[in-house]
């Protein structure tokens, strides 16, 4: 379902963050991406979400070749993915609920349906009681769960997470892990970039190890 062949990403300036990477992730799989800092994990995840465009090589998701997309088609492709950013990118000028509403507004849902679905997503991550809170008033773990709610609210077929347990204590990290396991269980393809050694051991052998942009 996600097939990368000789995928390369060179940033403006010339640095090759991902070099000649090939792999296959089948539908419903849970795959981790690991590697040292600067190895290219974020870049790889962003390539899959078509937030970054490959410099060369091909990336096919659900039979669609993302490297050959027209510019105008990109937004619609991005909506297939639920993306949890390394820096979360929560919006602090609005409530938790409004943060989760954003993908639904983009999809053009009516306000009533959107609110119902956003609340269901907040409930799923255990934040329904905090729907009116500003994200700034949430703890680190709660913010991470809010980011997850926003990523899954549009029922994506692929969930992409960039270091979702960084900076969390082991209890909070465990909660997050459980959430991903839940989504995996219901058939969502999950790709997680992480440093978390215990998680990496648990997922063995479904781990893509990056080193200076190359797959080991």
């Amino acid at each position: 379902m996600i097939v990368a062949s000789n995928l390369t990403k060179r940033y403006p300036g010339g640095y090759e963050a991902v070099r000649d990477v090939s792999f296959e992730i089948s539908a419903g799989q849970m795959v981790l991406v690991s590697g040292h800092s600067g190895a290219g994990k974020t870049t790889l995840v962003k390539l899959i979400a078509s937030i970054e465009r490959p410099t060369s090589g091909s990336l096919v998701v659900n039979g669609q070749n993302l490297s050959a997309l027209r510019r105008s088609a990109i937004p619609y492709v991005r909506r297939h993915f639920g993306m949890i950013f390394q820096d979360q990118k929560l919006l602090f000028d609005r409530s938790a609920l409004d943060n989760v509403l954003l993908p639904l507004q983009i999809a053009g849902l009516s306000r009533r349906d959107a609110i119902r679905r956003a609340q269901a997503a907040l409930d799923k991550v255990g934040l329904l009681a905090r729907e009116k809170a500003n994200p700034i008033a949430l703890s680190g773990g709660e913010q991470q769960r809010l980011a997850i709610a926003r990523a899954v609210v549009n029922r994506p077929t692929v969930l992409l997470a960039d270091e979702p347990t960084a900076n969390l204590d082991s209890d909070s990290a465990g909660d997050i892990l459980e959430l991903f396991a839940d989504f995996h269980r219901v058939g969502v393809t999950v790709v997680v970039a992480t440093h978390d050694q215990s998680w990496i051991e648990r997922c063995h052998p479904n781990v893509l190890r990056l080193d200076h942009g190359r797959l080991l």
Partner: protein
Amino acid sequence: MSAWLTQHSAALAAAFRRLLAAPMSTLLSLLVIGIALTLPAFGYVLLDNLRELGSRASGVKQISVFLELGASRKEVAEIESRLRQASGLTWRFVPREEALKRLQQTEEMAEIVASLPRNPLPDAFIVEPADTEPAALEAISKELAGWPKVAHVQLDSAWVKRFDAFLRLGRLALAMLAGLFAAGLVAVTFNTIRLQVMARAAEIEVARMIGATDAFIRRPFYYFGALQGALGGLLAAGIVLGGLHLLAGPVGELAALYGAAFALKAPTAIGAAVLAAGGALLGWLGAQLSVSLSLRKFD
């Protein structure tokens, strides 16, 4: 279709919220836009009233045709038949006796007239062409002057021409003023929107990365610009109406001094709608330019 409607009404609602979210800056922008639209609108109303006044002023549309003193009845009849054949004219014959009688009725003239040995006044025709454009009046009076037994043709054309030239100059000045202020309105909107885009950089960045189209991101800004322009236009209409209301008293008194009844014509609801639509269009244009430029850095 319903998704389309949802997205547009959501964008409009968002634009309203953004206007209300910063009432002070909204108020200031509206004032600037309102005043920028008021000046040309007021100028337009003023010119419109002047034109009305000019076309109503008596004598301007008339040509007096004085015949030679010795013109006979037959020769007068000849002129009458020629006038009858000409199209687009109304006319009235003023026999020299009637002219004299009228003169006698004027107090200061009565004595002088009585002392005259004989009637010094000629027969005359008062001609009113349907076409009152200065050029047309000029052409007709030239033709009339060439007819037999016509001694003199009088047309107050110098005044008409001067007034017309003045109106034309006024219109040109108004057009330049309107263009200038329209550019000002676009610039004000441009800047407001630029600041908004900067303030919403985080939202725009996330929205893009999770699948927002260009249209989704731009739409609320367009609506904001158009809405702000439209409200500014309505404000301008209000200011013009208020100004005319204040002027109505003095203008009425002035007109009364000249023995004329003249009231300023106020702009109609259509005028206000045109102002609002013009404001909306310019606001939309400013937003369009601003968003196109500001969003480049998100690519």
